[in-house]
């Protein structure tokens, strides 16, 4: 009989895999269920690496492909980074992120950033 009784070692898992996701079909937990500020407030998107498929050794390019602001999300070796100065906080990446636990938070922009004139007009 095949021996499956041994516990799985961390080494045996994918190196980058901190912990396996569980996808609950009904409720789709948001990482920090704090409210998304409404669209009038200046907002910015943030990727939570521990929930992002790309950060976890998987493959995903939804946010970087679908973000409407040129340059707001760039990728390196498949891993996305959001550039707060270019992000308009539109929330599209949050709405489309297909990770089992939504990896993108949309938060109010810290005041220091909102004063920067770097937002594309």
């Amino acid at each position: 009989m095949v021996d499956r009784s041994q516990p799985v070692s961390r080494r045996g898992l994918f190196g980058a895999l901190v912990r396996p996701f569980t996808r609950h079909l009904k409720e789709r937990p948001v990482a920090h269920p704090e409210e998304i500020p409404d669209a009038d407030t200046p907002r910015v998107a943030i990727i939570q690496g521990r929930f992002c498929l790309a950060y976890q050794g998987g493959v995903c390019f939804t946010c970087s492909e679908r973000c409407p602001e040129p340059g707001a999300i760039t990728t390196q070796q498949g891993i996305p980074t959001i550039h707060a100065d270019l992000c308009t906080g539109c929330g599209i990446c949050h709405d489309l992120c297909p990770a089992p636990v939504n990896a993108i938070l949309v938060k109010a922009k810290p005041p220091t950033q909102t004063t920067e004139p770097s937002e594309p007009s």
Partner: protein
Amino acid sequence: MNTMERRDFLKLSAMAAATAAAQAKAGVERTALHKDAHGIRWDKAPCRFCGTGCHVKVGVKGGRVVAIAGAEDADVNKGLLCVKGYHVGGILYGKDRLTTPMLRKEGKLEPISWDEAITVIAERIYKNPQKFAFYGSGQWTIPEGYAAQKFIKGGLSNNHIDPNARLCMASAVTGFISTYGVDEPAGTYDDLDNASVVIFWGNNPAEMHPVLFSRIVDRRSRGEKVTIIDIGTRRTRSTEFADHYLEFRPQTDLAIANCIANYLIENDKYDKAFVEKYCNFRIDVDDKTRDLLGKASTFEEYKAKMSTYTLEYTSQLSGVSVEKLTMLCETFADSKQLITSLWCMGVNQHYRGTAMNRLLHGIHLLSGQFGKPGAAPTSLTGQPSACGTAREVGTLAHALPGGRIVAKPEHRADCEKAWNMAPGTINEKPGYHTVLMFEKFCTPTAEGGDIDTILVQVTNPGQTLPNLYKLFDAKKDLADKFLIVSEVYPTATTEIADLVLPAALWVEKSGVYGNSERRTQQWFKQVEPPGGAREDVWMTIAIARKLYDMGYPGMKDKDGKFIFSYKDEQGNEVPIWDYAHFNDINVDKALYEEYRPLTHAKHKNVAPYDVLVNAHGLRWPVVQTKDGNWRETRFRFTEADDPFVKKGTGLQFYHSTTNDDKAQIWFCPYEAAPEEPNKEYPFWLCTGRVLEHWHTGSMTMRVDQLRKAMPKAYVELNPKDAADKGINNGDLVKLTTARGEIVLPAWINGRAQPPRGSVFVPFFDEKLLINRLTLDVTCPVSKEPDYKKCATKVEKYNPTEKQPLP
């Protein structure tokens, strides 16, 4: 609770009890099964989608799949899943599941009872058994494929059965058989953990086999060095991770492979000892003939033929620089490297698919990159059981279970004996392969269209056949042709079907799959199918039984017994064709165990059912060791690992076509594509899949997250071509080929950055059927069509309209 609800409830709970009873009859304790603190019952199953064959943990509560997680102790995926895998549970719960059989009456599909449906099918087959064809799938479970095979090739003495795998890995099969004499890869995914160089041949594993891709790239994050060489006709998401990218003109991969062989020989850098001991040379019979076995060649003749493919000539033909070609050739010349080649549809869906497969095996054999961990020519499959069901069960038009073929009398006799059928029952003439099957179906009977009924299970030919107008849509005008489709959701195929059968999906039934690395994996039914949906294997058995009741002689074996008669533990026959009794025994186990001995002849020994119950799959050949354990095989044909290799031989190709334990190194020439860009149609058109959707999207488009992430098809264009034509992102573009036209939004560069003069369109979108444009010319040996290249015209369409991009 009103009476209706109550009756349904009782029926459901009775069925649930039956499911539990069938599982208990598995006869072994199940280690994967447990209940957690939230009351979720966890069990295991392979993922429903791709040929990678990841294992998932399935969480069920209140009769529904409520959670999915990667199985940490599964060797394939070690806890990881791709974005599709995490959402696999959602495919069961699309709003438009089919739940009742429907017959087309005066143009409209009207609900009918299962009994009526089975009767309609049986009567059509009874009338014209030789005009009936069964079109199946690499997503069929092994028991489903085996039952279909026994039913048609045995019961009806008719060989018109083919799986959609014909469109997918037929060229890999002919490549393996003509090289090693027996199908399926020698290596496994373990090679990816050891290789120092991984080569993608027209392959985009980042999107198509994401977990395998992660397995390779993950090594880098652990500090290991692995060189990735990407050889393709377009940049892909995988290219981003490659150390070298070689972009070739479509079809010239043949020349590149030959160039490597020529370089190794010319520079005396091939592995002489290996070649001398283990290889023969082989060529086509003549310049025109392209068959499976060709003829023997001397080394000198092989060398002379190869000598055309110099670096300069190949560079000119393919567009790859001499420098890059030299780098590639030198990689194969360096005996310190451990090279694993991966390929899938880029090589298989190829007008010279068999040739290209042979050449890849050839360069690995010439360079001795074979038979040690990390060195292997490994073809991947796209479907979860292309290997298990299409290849091993042999559901192809020319094949029989366990690597047998209908053309060989002794192979037919083996099966007739196993099935207890009279000698001569199985027809010796191969049936129609997929393209021919649908061509005959779409041709009027009076003009030689001698297929009048097709039963389709677990696949969607209305979207996947090439040249759809000719091979599928033409059926609409033929009143005497009858299309029966077993499906889970409405699709392009059910749209013109005459009879639609609602099917159980994934963990709504039990099953056994076989993945790309010879791994056989089993799962149990975990939830009830919705409404009147039923198991495909039940449908096949019920049709057979109806024919038996009508007195059709083939449905009886030599002793007059029904061909699917199975007993319970008390030795009583169970009427499994009656759905109320289908779950009284484990039908999957009965069929699988009947099939299992048939796998021994070609040393494809699959593991016993009860052993699979507590494993995350085992890779055949699986043999029992002295201590009673079952041992799988990681590398076939090597003495170190394969139990069937004679001691002292090192490597033994024990099914060699030349009966001398040697493999064949083929020479196959570069030959032009059947349709190349020309004045009228100046672009290359390539089609394929995307990460988020599996094949035709019939399942994944029902999952919100996946549909949102990739909602519709598009055409990828090179920025310069787009600028020439004044096309911007989102503009509508009309593509026209000699077979049809389609209008879709442009995505400049897209995921791939297609080179100038070429476009790419994914095939998942049922509203934008790119296969209306593709070519139905096939590889002459494997009969697999080429979806990767044909000639198309590209025009800006309706300049004022814009469409949102995916």
